[in-house]
């Protein structure tokens, strides 16, 4: 249709959806809604991953982000009882300022990233790099060290969360 391939169509739709949901995240008044929109957005992003033949990542994205992290968010929101319909908003001036700064940022960045000149590099067909085998191979050979060291990060996060959550007992 319109001279566009399926890939291109899908990309267009998914992009549109992800942008739309992202905007909803920002604009929705209730934090709960924001979480839900964010999950929707993640789903569209996972779609894009699929489009890019990164099936494993797409799944992980949904499992980790939409499944785990977002639930964490929801929990916290519920915990804090923030599910009112409205909450205090920034002043219009701040919003306009934020919007215009964001707009400028976008403008400048797209201007910079426009002529990427990487058109000489093209790829057609089905990519296998995103498959779990190849990812695992890379992860446990080339990226073994980061993989190991990231445990420190998780440990640290854990320790931090524990410390924050702990009661002050001498």
């Amino acid at each position, binding site marked *: 249709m319109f001279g566009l391939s399926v890939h291109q169509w899908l990309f267009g739709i998914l992009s549109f959806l992800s942008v739309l949901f992202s905007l909803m995240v920002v604009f929705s008044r209730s934090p709960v809604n924001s979480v839900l929109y964010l999950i929707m957005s993640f789903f569209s992003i996972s779609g894009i991953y699929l489009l890019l033949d990164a099936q494993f990542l797409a799944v992980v994205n949904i499992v980790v982000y939409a499944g785990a992290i977002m639930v964490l968010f929801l929990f916290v929101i519920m915990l804090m009882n923030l599910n009112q319909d409205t909450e205090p908003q920034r002043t219009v001036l701040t919003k306009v300022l934020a919007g215009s700064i964001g707009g400028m940022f976008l403008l400048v*960045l797209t201007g*910079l*990233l426009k*002529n*990427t*000149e*990487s058109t000489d590099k093209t790829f057609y067909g089905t990519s296998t790099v995103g498959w779990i085998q190849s990812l695992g191979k890379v992860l446990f*050979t*080339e*990226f*073994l*060290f*980061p993989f190991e*060291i*990231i445990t*420190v*990060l998780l*440990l*640290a*996060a854990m*320790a*931090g969360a*524990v*410390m*924050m959550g*702990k009661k*002050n*007992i*001498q």
Partner: protein
Amino acid sequence: MGALITILSTGIVAFLSEIFNFKKVLYPLSLLGIAISFFFNIQEWNHTFSWKYSDNMLLFDKVALAFSSVLLLTVFLWFLMANTYFKSETSLVEHTSLVLFSLIGALLLVAFNNLVTLFLGVEILSIPLYVLAASNKKNILSNEAGFKYLIMGSFASGFLLFGIALLYGLSGSFDLKEIYQVLTTDQVPSYAYAGILMIFIALAFKVSIAPFHFWTPDVYEGSPIVITALMSTIVKTSVFVAIMKLFLWYFYPAYPHYIELVVGLIVFSLILANFSALKQTNAKRLLAFSSISHASIMLLLVIADIRNASTLNALLYYTFAYSVASILAFSIIQIVAQQKEETLDVLKGLFYKQSFLSVGLIIALLSMGGIPITAGFFAKYYILSALMMSPYKWMIIVAILASVLGIVYYLKMILLLFEKENKPTATPLTITTHEWLLIIVSIVLLVITGVYPDSIAQTFLK
């Protein structure tokens, strides 16, 4: 690498100490761990020239070893300083392990050879610090500090990632050597430069170069003072090694594209930091602005454009001098403030109450101000000397004026020490053995290296 592993083990062991109930030996254990790491560093320094680990992810060459030694020394001094703090702190275990984990991030940053390790280093360094900044749980200011640091830090991480992604897009690899290769070719797309700039921005955020410094004063003020001391030292040291590595070596082909921006940032940053510091009333906030100013001065090494051992020597010397002086200053303020708010007024008349502390503070401040015979002078000398060779000779004037403004607020602090207090405070200041040790060691280090800079400034030969 030995250091990294030792610290990692110490951190994990520390983390487990609560479960296995050896909290009592935790403190000596940590000191021991740091000492052993230091020992390993010396061993490795003597043995080989450089070790590569895990497919070029890490490169423990002399540079990494030297700077990691500075980091270890800083953290060692920090532990001496934090002893008092630990005594009154419930979550000792978490603190110890978080600090050690943060140190691991710092060690990664001095040894990285790959953008992945860079990213992980930055994050491992930062995330424990976010928590530590907020660690005074009952204090909303501390919470706020942690929160602000976290939000802004993550925001900056976003830019770091964006930059890394763009560079990856350019070269198809995270390996810095390959990126360097690609950058040397002719047709480099402009988004690569944007990526480099983004990485620079993210790192500038970490070392707080204006206008990416906004978190610094607030977080420094809000955090417990020991954490502030840690933040202001190891973060600066490690991230500056990263900056130097990237922007004077690996990204050097793109040098003309960002150097003028760096110049502009330095000037702006120096002006903003020094001017803002002039009328501060909070000691930590003042030192925050001072740290911004120091970071900008260190960044001058990038624009000096000297790509040999002398730059590394200069950075090593500067980070060493700055770290020791900072720890010294913070620890004295900690003692004087006695867990109350660290306004500058606590220093009033200190000289007449506890002259030893004030001598320590004077030496620390003079070192920061770059007065001989303290180490800070030689550090400043190095910068000026490097600038003299650079195409931006006029920056010398800026550096001089910044130095002068800097000395103004250091002197203002010194002035307070000699101000007669109207009502002498009732509680006498107590100095623990650890603090004695810390202060004496720091003073000796600052003076010895100031008088005999060869001891450090000759670390890297040609």
